[in-house]
């Protein structure tokens, strides 16, 4: 140890000094206390050879310089750690010097070319060049991340990268320095644990599996990580021969996901812990045909059988989408396969449950009809058992994946909706404090707007409103009165206004629109565009008698027209003073008669059409229900 005088550096000085040092040292790094506490080791050492003594920590603790000699393979290195303060904050500058030629080349080339840049695990090249021909007495495991592609597609590649890094770091923490973790493929990791007992190997894999499942990424809370692991003890065979066995077992584990398989076991035994064998419903009037199919599939599917169409529909009603797939014969008494298919289609079953037709009818007309009615696949007799099994498995997997994806999308949509509702709730509170309107006025206007828009789009397409437009207008409607926050609350809450005060109150549409126009960075957002229209023109009237601009007819944007009517309607029925409030019929009558200003006749028609629904919606000040499925799967929303 030696005391240092030149401890205080600026960031620039530190960088200059490190640049100089790099001319001599193979590696120069600046480590802060956090890195030192967590994982100070220079990456090539981290897994191969973690140090028993950490000069970095010693230098930090003693505010001094420390050195040691370290080996990596047969090469010798000098490691120096020096305490420095950069811009007043404590750091350790770490310098690594290879002490002979072979060390220098190892450090500079091999260790780097054998590392996966993203995760720090070994890369495929390391496996190909250094590992696969080796005879090691070792546990060999293949680790495959479940639904990794789905994860990438849904959360983006940065999430996928973060997940991979997290997983590798978790595994690194659970293994010994002599163990080797290789990123074998995109989401496949190969783990080699030399000189380990079979029991310890299984225990280790189960532990890793458990840790991975428990892990989560702080930035992606909804994302769950799990892996399927297949393992084998390799003794007397090269790693390359052990790998296919581990790989095969990994695929067995994949059947149920989040599972470890380390023995040669039948596929169905894998599922003992979390048994989710897909259920197949076989519909055929011939017991012989049902038996053959049942026997072909029973290893991997739970089997339900129906001898005819009505029984098939009955089972569908009872089991719903617990049934993963239906195998359907065509020629049956009473109700044939096409009838069954049509009824399934009419009841919306085909969205969730695929149907594979199996028949000895092989005319192209019949096959075409089956596809037209919504069958996913068509298998003609005589069939090959393995092909039937494969096709049924493929269709089932495809639908299962789609179901998982739908669940994910609806969860995300629901989360977004919840945030919107929360913001609106906050806005409602602010408005209530400021003026005398009911706190629920805003959410009611929103719901009425949504109902009116839905009806309007059923009646006409002249306004060219997409599903997304409707969603945005509905959301933006909650902002219609934000201009009022800039108005003196004595004016807002006064019962009788002087002409001057009325003039001030009538500026709130312009004030609201200006507030939104000041959000310069969001000017191109469709939501903001609609919100500006709504704020500025929700007091305009069809005959030009409104304010602030006296626009008339369809010169008033449709978003503002709809919100204006919703606002006026709720103003009549939703008054805080129950004595002043009108009944629903009275309100609709007044609006229709033009007593509250003129509205678009088409919209008034819509208002009358939806009276029943308005009664339900405006009953009591209940919070908004969760989003309706209809909106949820509107393609335009998903785009």
């Amino acid at each position, binding site marked *: 140890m030696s005391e240092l005088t030149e401890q205080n550096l600026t960031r620039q000085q530190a960088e200059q000094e490190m640049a100089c040092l790099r001319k001599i040292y193979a590696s120069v790094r600046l480590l802060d206390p956090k890195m030192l506490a967590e994982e100070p080791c220079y990456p090539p050492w981290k897994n191969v050879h973690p140090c028993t003594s950490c000069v970095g920590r010693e230098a930090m603790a003693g505010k001094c310089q420390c050195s040691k000699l370290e080996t990596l393979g047969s090469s010798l290195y000098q490691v120096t750690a020096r305490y420095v303060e950069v811009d007043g904050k404590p750091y350790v500058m770490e310098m690594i010097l290879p002490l002979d030629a072979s060390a220098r080349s190892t450090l500079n080339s091999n260790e780097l070319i054998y590392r996966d840049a993203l995760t720090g695990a070994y890369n495929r090249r390391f496996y190909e060049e250094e590992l696969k021909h080796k005879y090691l007495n070792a546990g060999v495991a293949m680790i495959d991340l479940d639904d990794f592609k789905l994860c990438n597609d849904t959360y983006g590649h940065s999430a996928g990268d973060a997940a991979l890094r997290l997983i590798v770091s978790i595994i690194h923490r659970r293994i010994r320095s002599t163990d080797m973790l290789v990123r074998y493929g995109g989401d496949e990791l190969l783990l080699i644990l030399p000189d380990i007992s079979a029991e310890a190997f299984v225990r280790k894999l189960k532990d890793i599996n458990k840790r991975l499942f428990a892990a989560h990424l702080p930035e992606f809370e909804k994302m769950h990580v799990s892996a399927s692991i297949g393992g084998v003890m390799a003794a007397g065979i090269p790693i390359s021969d052990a790998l296919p066995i581990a790989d095969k077992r990994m695929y067995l584990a994949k059947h149920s996901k989040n599972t470890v398989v380390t023995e040669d076991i039948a596929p169905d035994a894998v599922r003992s812990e979390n048994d989710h064998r897909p259920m197949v419903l076989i519909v055929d*009037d*011939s*017991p*012989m*045909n049902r*038996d*053959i199919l049942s*026997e*072909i599939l029973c290893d991997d599917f739970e089997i339900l059988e129906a001898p005819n169409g009505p029984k098939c529909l009955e089972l569908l009603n009872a089991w719903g989408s617990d049934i993963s797939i239906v195998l359907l014969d065509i*020629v*049956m*008494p009473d109700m044939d396969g096409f009838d069954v298919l049509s009824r399934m289609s009419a009841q919306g079953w085909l969205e969730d449950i695929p149907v594979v037709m199996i*028949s*000895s009818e092989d005319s192209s007309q019949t096959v075409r009809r089956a596809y037209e009615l919504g069958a996913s696949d068509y298998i003609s*007799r*005589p*069939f*090959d*058992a*393995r092909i039937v099994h494969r096709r049924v498995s493929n269709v089932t997997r495809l639908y299962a994946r789609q179901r998982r994806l739908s669940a994910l999308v609806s969860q995300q949509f629901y989360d977004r909706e919840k945030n919107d509702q929360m913001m609106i709730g906050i806005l409602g509170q602010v408005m209530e404090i400021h003026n005398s309107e009911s706190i629920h006025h805003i959410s009611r206007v929103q719901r009425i707007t949504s109902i009116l828009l839905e009806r309007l789009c059923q009646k006409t397409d002249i306004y060219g409103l997409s599903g997304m437009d409707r969603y945005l207008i509905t959301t933006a409607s909650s902002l219609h009165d934000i201009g009022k926050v800039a108005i003196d609350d004595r004016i807002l809450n006064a019962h009788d206004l002087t002409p001057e005060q009325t003039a001030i109150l009538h500026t709130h549409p312009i004030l609201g629109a200006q507030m939104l126009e000041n959000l310069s960075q969001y000017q191109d957002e469709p939501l903001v565009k609609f919100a500006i229209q709504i704020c500025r023109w929700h007091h305009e009237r069809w005959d030009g008698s409104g304010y602030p601009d006296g626009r008339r007819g369809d010169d008033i944007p449709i978003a503002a027209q709809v919100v204006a009517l919703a606002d006026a309607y709720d103003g009549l029925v939703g008054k805080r003073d129950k004595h002043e409030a009108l009944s629903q019929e009275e309100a609709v009558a007044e609006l229709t008669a033009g007593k509250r200003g003129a509205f678009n006749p088409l919209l008034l028609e819509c208002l009358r059409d939806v009276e029943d629904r308005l009664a339900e919606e405006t009953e009591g000040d209940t919070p908004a229900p969760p989003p309706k499925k209809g909106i949820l799967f509107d393609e335009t929303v998903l785009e």
Partner: protein
Amino acid sequence: MTLEQVYAAIGGDYKGVMERLPSADFVRRFALKFLQDDSFPNLKKALEEKDAPTAFRAAHTLKGVCQNLGFDALYAPSSALTEALRGGSLDGADELFPPVEKEYQRVVEALKALE
């Protein structure tokens, strides 16, 4: 008789069925099950009762089972009869049924001799 000899005796496609179905044991079990299959008795009864739709379905099922099990010699006349019955008329059934019955008997006898 062995399974292969049975197939030879009934004009069946032994090689084809062994390729399509999972195992010899599987083929044997389902071949024997054919003895309990009621599509032929149903066909015969429906024809006697002049019930064309039921006869069509029974002939159709018989044809399908024969396809799966590779009973080619029985499949051919069953298929011809199925097509004749498809429109709901019994025209031609009198001529087309006897070959079906003849082949069916041959299959049944051979299967009974299966070891």
